[in-house]
């Protein structure tokens, strides 16, 4: 998958993933691979700068916690601001996607 195509869409995908439940970095990567049927494979370390940036913007928040039988991990969860941003960005994305489809289906 072209890196340029992923740019600008990773934020929205992360926010959508965290809407369901708090997750940690490694779990997110695995979930992305499953949901995209292996299409979204990127260098795993590059996820963390994006997560930290979203946290700085107040769209997600993090906490260290330890589930039974697991080691201590940093979990991320979406904030109220994150949910409203996700809704706005999803609408924008749908419009954009529709426009691209319309242009590409032109013969």
């Amino acid at each position, binding site marked *: 998958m072209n890196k340029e195509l992923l740019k600008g869409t990773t934020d929205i995908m992360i926010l959508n993933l965290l809407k369901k439940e708090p997750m940690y970095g490694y779990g997110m990567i695995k979930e992305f691979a499953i949901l995209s049927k292996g299409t979204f494979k990127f260098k795993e*370390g590059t996820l963390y*700068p994006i997560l930290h940036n979203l946290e700085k913007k107040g769209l997600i928040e993090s906490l260290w916690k330890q589930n039974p039988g697991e080691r201590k991990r940093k979990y991320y969860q979406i904030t109220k601001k994150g949910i409203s941003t996700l809704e706005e960005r999803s609408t924008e994305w749908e419009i954009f996607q529709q426009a691209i489809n319309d242009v590409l289906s032109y013969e």
Partner: protein
Amino acid sequence: MNSEVQEVDKRIALFLDKVGNQINTEEEALKIKDELIDHIDCLTEELIDMGYSNDEAISKALMQMGDPNEIGYSFTNRDVVRKRNQLIRMLRMLSIGLLIIGCVILFVFTEYSTESLGSVIYFFNILNIVGFSSLTSHTNSKYLMNSEDIPILIIWPVKKHIYVEYIIIGIIFSPILILFGTGLVLGAIEDNTLWKLILLIIIFTSAIISTFLINKLRIPKYIVTNEGLIVLGKFISWTAINNVRWLNSYYKNENTYMLQILDNRGFPITRKIKVSNNQYEMVSSIISERV
């Protein structure tokens, strides 16, 4: 945290160091290290379950993580660099201002005694140890903020060590400071002017704290981009560089490399660039691809 890093594989430690080297502050780098270690451990365990040996699993896990320099640099937020630049400028003014005010008050209180001059030199010496030499290269941050050319690599200042000469000067001036300080305290008690003494202590302590804070805020020293090198705000195109020379040096008990950039006539274009051990390989391969 440090003991944890010591327990991890050397390759992982090197990877973490490379990431950390590109991150704005050491505190931020430490916070991120824990998270990255967890991710690499998860990946390694998964690969071992798939049948890889421990050694192979670590190598493959690090490959999957990506380029550590790129990961580290991605944490660098241009807004943060801009704010840091402003903060450094403010702290520098505050530090120098406080020091001048402190010195003037000290001279006035002690009626221009030679001991007070000794103490002033002592304070300047402390400031020299903790921070003045870090007050360089803010021009590079300006470039980083204004240019659209995304850097390939940022070369941070090599970690500063306490210079032996400053310690010696400090030791020489210590008795003067102790004598002078004791005299000042006794005089203040006698004259019932303890508030003056407290004021002086607050002023000098604040000056030292501000200088310490400046030292903690790292800003890029050299920037490597696709188009060329930025050294102290000056852009040097790859085409202007004819050759480079690496000099190995033993700088303040740490193995570092000195890079000399030469023009067509073989003359150095800039002063020698100090590159730390863990950034050497990366810088060397970038340069050999372009020069």
